[in-house]
């Protein structure tokens, strides 16, 4: 327990909720606002929030390239809602810059404005037969995904939980529910990546 340190990008968004969920899932949680903090984590969650805000802050505080380099070197990354938009290759119909770490085109506010924000019992085979309580808030969906992207769950015919190697993206907010299965899944991804790295180094 606590053998992996998982950062939560803390430029803006629901940081505390993810930190609690990481601790409950057996990881050690760390707020990441600086390069120093980024260098001290084994995996990173980009939380829910506003994608335009966070992308601008990543640029202003020179975190874009270091973050890209860490993820390309194998550090697991999970983006929830805003985080998935920031991680994506592109935003449909928008010149909005992104990190380009997940080979998907996402549509922002795909389900509509706040009046369409909803709770849904979502089938996620990778998490077992019990549906997952998914909270969608002004949520994006995956409009197109590259061939190396696994779509782990869909809603209204569009991907809402996807994985490409060490990068996980979800349209919804597991950190707002008491269901820790997706955080446990990510903690395992981080653990596996850390063990793999140690093995390679040896």
């Amino acid at each position, binding site marked *: 327990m606590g053998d992996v340190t998982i950062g939560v990008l803390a430029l803006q968004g629901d940081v*505390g909720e993810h930190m609690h969920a990481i601790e409950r899932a057996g990881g050690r949680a760390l707020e990441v606002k600086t390069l120093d903090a980024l260098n001290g984590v084994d995996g990173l969650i980009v939380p829910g*929030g506003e994608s335009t805000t966070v992308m601008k802050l990543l640029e202003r505080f020179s975190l874009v390239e270091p973050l890209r380099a860490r993820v390309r070197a194998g550090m697991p990354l999970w983006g929830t809602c805003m985080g998935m938009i920031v991680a994506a290759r592109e935003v449909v119909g928008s010149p909005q810059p992104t990190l380009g770490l997940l080979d998907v085109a996402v549509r922002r506010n795909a389900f509509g404005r706040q009046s369409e924000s909803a*709770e849904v019992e979502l089938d996620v085979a990778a998490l077992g037969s019990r549906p997952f309580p998914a*909270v*969608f808030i002004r949520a994006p969906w995956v409009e197109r995904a590259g061939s190396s992207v696994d779509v782990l769950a869909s809603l209204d015919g569009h991907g809402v939980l996807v994985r490409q190697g060490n990068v996980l993206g979800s349209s919804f907010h597991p950190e*707002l529910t008491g269901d820790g299965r997706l955080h446990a899944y990510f903690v395992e991804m981080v653990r596996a990546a850390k063990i793999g790295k140690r093995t390679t180094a040896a």
Partner: protein
Amino acid sequence: MPKETGTLTVKRGLAQMLKGGVIMDVVTPDQALIAQEAGAVAVMALERIPADIRAAGGVARMSDLELVSRIMDAVTIPVMAKARIGHFAEAQALQELGVDFIDESEVLTPADDLFHISKESFKVPFVCGARDLGEALRRIAEGAAMIRSKGEAGSGNIVEAVRHMRAINDTIRALTVTPKEELVARARDLGAPYELVADVAEKGRLPVVLFCAGGVSTPADASLMMQLGAEGIFVGSGIFKSSNPKAFAKAIVDATTHYADPSVVVDAHKALSGRAMEGIDVRKLPESELLAPRGN
């Protein structure tokens, strides 16, 4: 898979997604774009910013809906709009229009001098102002999904926001060490439902997100309020009443994100290249011109 919209979780959840961010008052689509470009997490669509409402006097009502619509079309970030205290028909109209959040605000002239809107029955989330914990919990009991300090809007003076933020957080701290047998009496004194008081005593925080509003005009103001426990910042007149709105907007965003790092606040201040809005000594305002006492 059936979808349930307008639940407590999605209403409070949107406020949670705004944490650590700055929400800016704007009166035109162009200003909304400046705010978004500076890194605002949301905009408040208004006809006049509070400083101008204060100067103009008269009755301040819900904004022109055509203007709110144009602002909604202009930006991708959430759009909030204000309804008068107790004016549930204005709130119904704003919900119908599709705004993402409604501020039942003391900045507008109250429509009901006794009762607030019953916010629980709406699908759209509401934010309300509060001066102390009792007021905050009464608004939450009515269904508010987010609380902000009232401060003294349009004054350019942070003193009232500091007073309100301290009052809310000091009382929360005191409740966490209050013996259980005293909580019913504390609920009576606060004028708030026992269940909410007991929940705050147990968790040491409000059940909804707490922002600061009313008087923020510089990056250091934003840093101050975040260090006093605000989870995010509303800036009303402070940006578009400054001499350099673009620079002020960006600097206040930077200082809110890195509120605990004085070196970032220094850089933010250096980048202002302009003057902050003129302020008002709140003690010199006649009682009839104070906004914070509206609604309780």
